[in-house]
């Protein structure tokens, strides 16, 4: 056990950030409220850039590279977007949003409903991806993952640090902010996949170097590859930010989704549950009352006794023992392996 290497704990005032380190923004400087969309620009295929200002006209809190804001959707769900404008600008914030057709609908809502002059509810900024001081930086951005790196690059440049950026994407037209990066000359390597294939991470990252920090943001495949490459680097050298994505449990077997027969023994009826419809919905449609709440296999409200049949458990709640007993299921997400179930409903 080592003692704290910094000053003794009782001599530092509460809540004082270390001077000179670009750590995350502090709470207490967070904003929660309504912003007005000043401009909306298409900056790449399926990417819009939004310039925001506080609707009240008050200045926005300062932030540091890597920070993000939460956009609160009308449903109450929140989506996080990195701030990618100039760090010192307290009048405006800029975010860029990629339309993700396979996502949970947040980005689509923004693309379809947010117009210039419109308003958004936001919270933040917060920073889980702070830029730490170093003499040399290697930035790796994939697709919309370029956004948190833009202010980092500006910061590194201002600090006279050595830096370079490897920027990958599907096609040149899908890659946002290329014009802004042109001014940096050879420090920026743009590698769209349609022309260059996979990124040459080994060539770009090279060998471990104690004075270098690596910052990477992008799709999971890119981050995994960078993590694999940096496995031998000093701990803390690699800094990543993953896009939060809802984990989707895959069906336990590889067979395509099949319709299933569900007998509701207490009600004396049988329902057919087609692919894409949950057992819960099918039961409700058959007029059988059943409790439910989250419809995501988390809360357990719709737990139902299974009398016959093998359950394909797809919930998050049940323990392995409970699954193995095969006598209960969460009908909002789970299905049948053998095509047939008998439930105590």
């Amino acid at each position, binding site marked *: 056990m080592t*003692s704290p290497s*910094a000053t003794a704990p*009782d001599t530092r005032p509460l*809540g004082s950030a*270390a001077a000179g380190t670009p750590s*995350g923004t502090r709470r207490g400087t967070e904003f929660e409220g309504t912003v007005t969309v000043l401009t909306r620009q298409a900056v790449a295929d399926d990417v819009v850039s939004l310039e925001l200002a506080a609707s009240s006209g008050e200045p926005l809190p300062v932030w540091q590279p890597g920070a993000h804001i939460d956009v609160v959707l009308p449903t109450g769900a929140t989506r996080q977007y990195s701030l990618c404008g100039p760090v010192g600008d307290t009048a405006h914030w800029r975010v860029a949003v990629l339309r993700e057709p396979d996502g949970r609908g947040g980005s689509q809502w923004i693309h379809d409903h947010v117009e210039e002059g419109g308003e958004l509810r936001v919270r933040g900024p917060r920073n889980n991806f702070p830029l*730490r001081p170093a003499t040399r930086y290697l930035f790796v951005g994939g697709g919309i993952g370029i956004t948190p790196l833009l202010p980092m690059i500006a910061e590194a440049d201002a600090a006279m640090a050595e830096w370079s950026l490897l920027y990958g994407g599907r096609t040149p037209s899908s890659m946002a902010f290329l014009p802004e990066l042109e001014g940096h000359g050879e420090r920026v390597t743009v590698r769209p996949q349609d022309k260059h294939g996979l990124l040459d991470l080994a060539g770009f990252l090279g060998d471990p170097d104690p004075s270098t920090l690596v910052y990477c943001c992008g799709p999971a495949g890119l981050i995994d590859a960078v993590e694999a490459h940096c496995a031998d680097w000093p701990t803390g050298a690699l800094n990543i930010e993953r896009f939060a994505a809802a984990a989707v449990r895959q069906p336990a077997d590889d067979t395509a989704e099949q319709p299933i027969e569900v007998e509701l023994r207490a009600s004396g009826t049988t329902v057919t549950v087609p692919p894409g419809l949950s057992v819960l919905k099918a039961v409700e449609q058959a007029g059988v009352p059943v409790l439910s*709440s989250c419809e995501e296999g988390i809360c357990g409200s719709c737990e139902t006794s299974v009398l016959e049949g093998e359950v394909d458990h797809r919930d998050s709640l049940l323990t392995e023992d409970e699954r193995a007993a095969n006598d209960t299921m969460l009908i909002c997400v789970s299905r049948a392996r053998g095509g047939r179930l008998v439930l105590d409903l």
Partner: protein
Amino acid sequence: MTLTQHVRNGWYLGAWSDEIGRTLKQRWITDIPVCFYRLPDQTVTAVEDRCPHRKYPLSLGHLDDEGTLQCDYHGYRFDGQGVCVGVAEQADRPKAALRRFPLVERDGAIWIWPGDPELADESLLPDTSWLTDPSWTHVHGVVPLKARHMLLLENLLDLTHETFLHPTSIGNAAVAATPIDVTVDGDRVGFSRRMIGIEAPPFYEKSCGLTSPVDRWQDGDFYPPGIFVLNIRVAATGTEEPDGFHMKVLYGMTPGRGNETHDFYALGRDYLIDDQELTKFQHEQQLAVMQEDVDALEAQEIMYATDPGGSAESSIKSDLAALRGRRAVAKMLAREQRAQQDARVPHSRASV
């Protein structure tokens, strides 16, 4: 969530050792009034705080130097085993004995088993050796809480609330933003949250002399029905092990009377153990954080108490450990209720 009945076949933290001496102490546990005291040889004992004669609280009586407990209403006297040894009114001893509860006193804590004594199993207790380990130091106490035990349990099993309820001390955005891994081992529920490269919340900045970014680990273990142990490790990013600052928090979530709960806590650390200033600071912070929790849970209790039908609750992935904890307790309670039904005598005489 209707849990006005409590699991009794389980260990609860009944008292800290330094709370119990030669004076009689009443504490309600799972709706049972319990009277704690020490015998002349210093062994701790706990009996139901109702005199078998007319249910007068024995804790209002007194204890003599031989360890005989006298009820101060009509003078029933009980020995250290809880057996009635005489009354002033007659020469014959009444056939009366007190209900005594299994206790384990260990590392400065007194654990009580309010249910079937046959089932009391010491191996179910968590390791508390750090409370007496010379390389650790800790503070402890108990805070009264006017809210049901389940609300405290869910508070501890879902620490994302730190972000919102404790923003000036132990919470920041990183807590709510970092998903947990949940593990289950029989009835036990565990979770771990690994916050890497985050801003140090003020409490840890000051407690460890750290500057951001830090790595902060939370590993919680719930021993149903009422014990929670949190292991906290904080270190400068990239040096988590073996250089981390290690802290532990033990919570005894002990149902009291009705929907009241005893919120026992012990906060320990394995560094700067002689730093009294730091100890004082940590204790103040611990109590301040607990007060924020108590205020929140008491407000929540009112909302649950006035919604007896239980309108639907929304749940999200971060609720998983708390929901599993809730289920673990519900299952224990169901097992207990089934056992009670099976054992019920068909023609029990109603008492007056």
